[in-house]
């Protein structure tokens, strides 16, 4: 393949790319137009009045601009500045055409935003070579842009799919749960049927919870979980969370010790999410405490501006090496317990988003486990708030 073929080859690959020539000299324009169209470029436009450059660029959307420096009305430098002001951020190669080889005007043009320059009289080989290089550059920028758009579209599609999947997966569970939980209360059931229906309820609830957890975790990893932080009462939220696990506490005859003693317990938090954290940890404690064991929940202001909530169980406890791992997604220290092991990972993410912490400690096997949740308090709001009266946690 000889050089001409190679450069023509380049032109034919880029023949759809658009070139704008801005030069007040008809002879120059004609020469460049001929050279480019002979080499296979089909989309060449020329203007001889530089004042039309911006408007023409907006309409024609060129891939490369060839710009004369010396023109009446508006010189190349002024055009460059106007172009760069318009197309800030986007890469539009502008090649200035100049007979002037002094360094001063080259610097000036480059500083004003010229990408490269071509010296007059034109060396045909150089014009075509430079053209090919900038067309290649444009092509690769297009591709990059295309990849970005594709990735964004794919991620948006995935989000949509997950949102839809959650709804679709969860929706069929609702009528099952409604019917089963209604029927299980009827008095004339055989023990067999009663037990069976309770099993149905348990498993449907478990399934629903796992779907919710998976979705939460997906949202968290994508940074799609947003908090609506308002003034909230931490003690009240603990109370709500305890209500949700009360059934489990009673079923396993657990002893619940409450000591919510922190004088400052107002926090700026997303109350639904913070309650979810308390619930996750409580649920965990219920799961790990032995039958007739003890769960204790206490709060205190370790530092004046922080509230710490400790939830302990009298269960088997944890080995030191497991203490960090339990906050990782899909980690289940004891694989005989149900669930995906996502609750604590979600809790940790929620606490981090609240600029708070959650950690676990255990004195070893059979010494139980204590989870500490720490969060900044909004001081001075506790006394005046009517909510305080309702905050008495359920006994």
């Amino acid at each position, binding site marked *: 393949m000889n050089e001409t073929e190679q450069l023509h080859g380049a032109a034919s690959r880029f023949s759809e790319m658009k070139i704008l020539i801005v030069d007040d000299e008809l002879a120059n324009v004609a020469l460049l137009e001929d050279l480019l169209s002979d080499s296979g470029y089909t989309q060449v436009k020329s203007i001889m009045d530089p004042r039309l450059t911006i408007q023409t660029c907006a309409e024609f959307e060129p891939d490369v601009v060839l710009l004369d420096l010396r023109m009446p009305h508006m010189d190349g430098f002024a055009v460059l500045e106007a172009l760069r002001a318009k197309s800030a951020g986007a890469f539009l190669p502008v090649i200035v055409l100049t007979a002037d080889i002094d360094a001063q005007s080259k610097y000036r043009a480059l500083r004003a935003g010229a990408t490269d320059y071509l010296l007059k009289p034109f060396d045909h080989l150089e014009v075509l070579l430079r053209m090919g290089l900038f067309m290649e550059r444009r092509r690769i920028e297009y591709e990059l842009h295309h990849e970005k758009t594709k*990735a964004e579209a794919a991620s948006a599609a995935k989000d949509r799919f997950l949102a839809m999947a959650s709804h679709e997966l969860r929706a069929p569970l609702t009528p099952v749960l409604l019917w089963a939980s209604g029927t299980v209360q009827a008095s004339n059931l055989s023990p067999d049927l009663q037990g069976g229906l309770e099993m149905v309820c348990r498993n449907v609830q478990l399934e629903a919870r796992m779907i919710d957890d998976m979705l939460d975790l997906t949202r968290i990893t994508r940074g799609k979980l947003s908090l609506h932080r308002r003034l909230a009462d931490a003690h009240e939220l603990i109370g709500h969370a305890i209500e949700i696990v009360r059934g489990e506490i009673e079923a396993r005859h657990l002893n619940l010790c409450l000591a919510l003693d922190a004088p400052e317990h107002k926090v700026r938090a997303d109350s639904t999410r913070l309650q979810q954290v308390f619930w996750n940890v409580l649920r965990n404690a219920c799961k790990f405490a032995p039958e007739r064991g003890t769960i204790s929940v206490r709060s205190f202001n370790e530092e004046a501006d922080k509230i710490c909530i400790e939830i302990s169980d009298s269960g088997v406890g944890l080995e030191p090496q497991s203490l960090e791992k339990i906050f990782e997604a899909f980690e289940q220290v004891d694989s005989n317990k149900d669930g995906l092991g996502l609750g604590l990972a979600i809790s940790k993410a929620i606490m981090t988003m609240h600029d708070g912490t959650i950690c676990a400690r255990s004195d070893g096997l059979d010494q139980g486990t204590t989870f500490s949740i720490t969060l900044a308090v909004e001081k001075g709001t506790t006394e005046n708030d009517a909510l305080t009266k309702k905050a008495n946690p359920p006994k």
Partner: protein
Amino acid sequence: MNTDTWNADFSAYTKMRILIVDDEPANVALLEDMLSDQGYVCVKSTTDSRDVVELCNEFDPDLILLDLFMPHLDGFTILEALRGDRTEVFLPIIVLTADVNEETKRRALNLGATDFLNKPLDHIEVLLRIRNMLETRRIHQLLDNRRAALEDAVAARTSELHAAQAELDKVQGRAGR
């Protein structure tokens, strides 16, 4: 001449690796000075063209400045060797020549030269061509990385889903009991 303002444009590429190949030590020194003045910190050079292929493998340059007429192996032979066994992302090779003959340039371009610089070297032209070529290479790399990242993300996602699926199977197995 205010070159300081111009420097700002180069700061993004000064960590990219440039290999200079010229048998004339004076030329090498001139280019090295120009580049280090501009803030380029990863510049390697050789005056023996027989070292080039090995140097390329070791140094993994982002851009090569290549003299055409050298003893032992000339620039054309090196172009052939480099383009022959390198299929990686866009590696710009700028050919340096005092020969303004069109035939010479055509031959170099056909063998895979990306651009050329005429000797005696014009300071602005050298820096400008290098900047433009490094910028293009950076965009090629961005595109490659993005594609690779996308593939990685898909792979990671798939294995995550498999893990979740396995967990679900396990849980369902237990629930059935």
